[in-house]
């Protein structure tokens, strides 16, 4: 049987992008499927990346542009894998292209629509600390830089779907502002979702991660000033909603004292997850450093149990963070609650044997990394195994870290387990190598593959 030399890459974060580029550069056709309207993934949200403090947009945007322009890559954003059948060398995949309600052939990406749309929705890209319009591109450097209409929030769609007596509330107005203002007449209310069927020889799964929601840790108050790491990245980001000025969500005040809590949900089999999320130690150190650079005369405190800085240059980075005055307190935080203008953080320093209480203006929780929402469903669709949390299981944890439990399906990035950017990139490339190797062999025999 002939091996179909075309690959499906699921997930347009940095791991998926890297896998797609390597395979495409290897001369094979790639279909890259991303469920949000743009590639980039979580990496595009970060302010600066450890330990070099590079601007992630600067290093990622060229790769994003590459996948958008590469002649061997078919980029399907706002699309999701629905069904897989067949076997290694010859999978049939069904991909649902969600309705964008915007004709991307006509759209010029001029931006009029999303600037004028009156409906405001919490921005996924800004992790909810800022709004976007109902017609939107997720962020300025999005690829493609053409919008989609969020049908769940668009006023006109809601108007159309309103059923008197059944839908709650009043019928929304016939807005259609985007349609009226679009100079390219690209708004297409008739556009429907469609299923695309493709034949591929191999699949790379790089569906990434999500953070554990803060509300899973009720001892840490539900408070606008208790935020997660990604939200703080957006605050620190020069491209973020406050243009890099750190302001706390509740009242816009510049926080003079920030507490960072490691292992929020991680290493906690009783209330969270038993695993270590691997990246929090580093990104919290980085955030503390950036925060101190951004706000003069400020104080950062980091609660931790063990600092885990094993990557290249990481230990040195950690030591620098400490030297620059961030106070490390060895212990977990038991409770956080609001007391007037401040958040009381009740912690401990197990090294001095003292209970510690910090009055903070802002608290950043290093929430546990979980597989992206829907990972288990994805695994079921792909017919591959996951662990209890939903991280995809490799065929052998030591010696086959990139192969899933099903031949022809490979893993990359944080979908397999928490990891940082270099490890994700290396895995993206590594998975590509598996695919390139497979495609270099021309024929499948009943016994397996023969070298062609």
């Amino acid at each position, binding site marked *: 049987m002939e091996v179909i030399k075309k690959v499906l890459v699921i997930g347009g974060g940095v791991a998926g992008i890297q896998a797609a580029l390597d395979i495409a550069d290897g001369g094979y056709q790639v279909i890259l499927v991303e469920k949000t309207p743009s590639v980039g993934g979580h990496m595009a949200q970060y302010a600066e990346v450890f330990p070099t403090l590079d601007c992630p947009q600067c290093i990622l945007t060229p790769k994003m*542009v590459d996948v958008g322009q590469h002649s061997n890559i078919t980029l399907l954003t706002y699309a999701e894998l629905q069904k897989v059948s067949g076997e290694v060398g010859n999978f049939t995949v069904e991909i649902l292209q969600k309705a964008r309600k915007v004709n991307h052939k006509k759209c010029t990406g001029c931006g009029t629509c999303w600037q004028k749309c009156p409906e405001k929705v919490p921005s996924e890209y800004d992790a909810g600390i800022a709004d976007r319009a109902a017609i939107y591109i997720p962020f300025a450097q999005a690829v493609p830089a053409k919008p989609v209409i969020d049908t769940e929030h668009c006023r006109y769609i809601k108007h159309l779907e309103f059923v008197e007596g059944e839908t709650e509330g009043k019928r929304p107005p016939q807005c259609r502002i985007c349609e009226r203002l679009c100079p390219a007449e690209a708004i297409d209310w008739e556009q429907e979702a469609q299923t695309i069927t493709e034949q591929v020889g191999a699949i790379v799964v790089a569906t990434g991660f999500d953070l554990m929601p803060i509300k899973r840790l009720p001892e840490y108050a539900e408070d606008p000033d208790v935020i997660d790491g990604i939200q703080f990245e957006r605050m620190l980001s020069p491209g973020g909603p406050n243009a890099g000025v750190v302001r706390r969500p509740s009242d816009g005040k510049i926080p003079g004292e920030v507490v960072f809590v490691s292992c929020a949900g991680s290493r906690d089999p009783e209330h969270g997850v038993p695993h*270590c999320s691997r990246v929090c130690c580093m990104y919290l150190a980085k955030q503390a450093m950036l925060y101190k650079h951004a706000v003069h005369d400020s104080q950062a405190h980091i609660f931790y149990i063990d600092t885990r800085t094993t990557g290249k*240059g990481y230990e040195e980075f950690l030591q620098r963070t400490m030297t620059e005055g961030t106070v490390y307190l060895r212990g977990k935080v038991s409770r956080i609650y609001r007391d007037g203008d401040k958040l009381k953080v009740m912690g401990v320093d197990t090294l001095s044997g003292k209970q510690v209480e910090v009055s903070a203006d802002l608290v950043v929780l290093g929430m546990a990394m979980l597989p992206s929402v829907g990972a288990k469903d994805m695994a079921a669709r792909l017919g591959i195994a996951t662990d209890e949390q939903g991280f995809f299981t490799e065929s052998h944890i030591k*010696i086959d870290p990139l192969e899933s439990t099903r031949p022809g399906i490979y893993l990359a990035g944080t979908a397999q387990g928490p990891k940082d950017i270099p490890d994700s990139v290396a895995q993206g490339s590594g998975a590509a190598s598996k695919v*390139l190797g497979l495609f270099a062999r021309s024929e499948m025999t009943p016994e397996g593959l023969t070298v062609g």
Partner: protein
Amino acid sequence: MARQERIGVFVCHCGNNIAGTVDIERVVEELSHYPGVVHVEDYMYMCSDPGQELMRKAIQEKALTGIVNANCSPTLHQRTFRRVAEAEGLNPYCVEIANIREQCSWPHADDKETATRKAIAIIKATVEKLRFNMALTPTVTPLTKRVLVIGAGIAGIQAALDIANGGYGVVLVEQDIGIGGHVMQLAGTFPSLEQPDSLIASRLAEVASHPLVKLYTYAEVEEVSGYVGNFDVKIRQKAGYINRGRCNACGMCLEKCPVLVSSEYDCGLSQRKAIRLPSPAALTFHPVIDVEHCLHFNGSQCQACCEVCPEGAIDFSEEDTFVEERIGVVVAAPGYDLLPVGQPEAYPEDPDIIDGLKFERILSATGPTNGEIRRPSDGKVPREVVFISCVGSRDPEHGVPYCSRVCCMYVAKQALLYRQAVPEGQAYIFYMDIRSDAKGFEEFVQDVMDEGGILYLRGEVSRMFRDGDKIKVWGVDTLIGRNIEISADLVVLARAMVPRPTTRELTRKLNIASDAHGFLTEAHIKLRPVESLTSGIYLAGTAQWPRDLPDTIASAEAAASKVLSLFSREELLHEPTIAWVDEEICSGCEQCVANCTYKAIEVDKRSNVARVNEAICEGCGSCAAICPSNAVQLKNSTPRQFFEIIDVAAG
């Protein structure tokens, strides 16, 4: 030189990154009157699709002959914009980037006026440079689709297999007599507790018998010349003093050899002969004679092996031989060593104070004690074993500043295996931070902690010394705030992982960089983790940074992917912005030759002028800088262009 007379200038806002600081309107206004500039346009994100569309339109409509893109650093979008130009029929080397972000709006964020004036100056200067740009075409060089992999540890083996299974030839060179590297010495993996040598046995066998892999053991890379696509490698096949064609691997010589030497494989816990084979678990290769210890080579007349060899294969007159191979790219995977004994000095030398690898041999079923835990000094089963993490690691004063990444895990594993072998024993683990950060690791460590008889102590050990039968260990428990003393039967030091001493020499041969510790340096720590800065040389495994088995394998697979991608092309394109020699002026003084890092320039003996090898030249410009007569110039970065730039910038 042709002069670019219809120049287009495109100014990017980069959201607020530039527009927030630089007065774009004023920039556009200033440039629109500038000589030679026929089109000026600004846009929110020039790199976006609509931004590129603006360029396309202008190239066609205004028949532009050159373009200046004023935006971020050229490392980001030069390629993007050049590709746009090329697609519209404009030579890509007639596109220049004026960096008004990193070099202007960012550093001058609090001074709009300065930033705006500087941006204008930068763009005008770039226009001046562009005027004298030549239209260039990349050089095409052939590509040899064959790979040299250095090091046959698990990283090298995995890379070799991935590439060979991709259908390309591999030359795999290993300095030791057997393959498999340090993995072969280990007693068990974490967290899965499998026997590592059997785990990778099939890969060893596959690589040894793969039709596309040419394996050289007991060999070293002597010399590498050439450039990506076409390297010539000289391999030294070290003399084993045994004729490989004749030897039938019967092993009689090994029995008869009278010399005992401490075994490298068993970390000195057992002895081997002066004529030796690789590790028992490794695939059987031919024995070699270790000249350092062989009596024959040390003034004696011993002929024991010769006398017994039924095939007459012993050949004391054998000499090192050299093999030349032509390959296209290199994967460097020379691996690691442990920090040598004596560093840091505070711990005494004692047979019962051993390093982690030695303890692996003690634990190993294939080890000298067949997996029975016995301490080296007197063969006693140790009842109390102290493990010390971070020996030399995280210690910039006495060892190395970095974390060796794997020690926390292998120490936990060793303590567990020890307890399984000696159920009544007690293990102590001194640590500073438990770094169990990969998949399944935290869970593993927590299980180990929960195992009775393993006590974690948060603190370092300050001293240890022998006291009769015991080794006294003086440490601290920072959690309880008390000094601790333990009387141990055996102490295991998790010494820092360091690059092999030979790695530095290798970096010189390959012309790649290494960091202060000697680890191989990647092109970009985040996004190009398996490439070196030298084209065509890739990195894998622990020579680049301490890592465990899966990360090592993943990095090897990633390196293989880079190779396979590259090999999908039929030939290589080479940047044309390289050095060029004006033969009329060149006097053949050879200063440029001495100054070239890439060995890309030489003086033609007959004509006595310098010649640039276009395939090797990386366009760094050091030849141009040193040339006393300006005979060597960098294409599109000529002195004239720089003078024009300085004129504008200073004016």
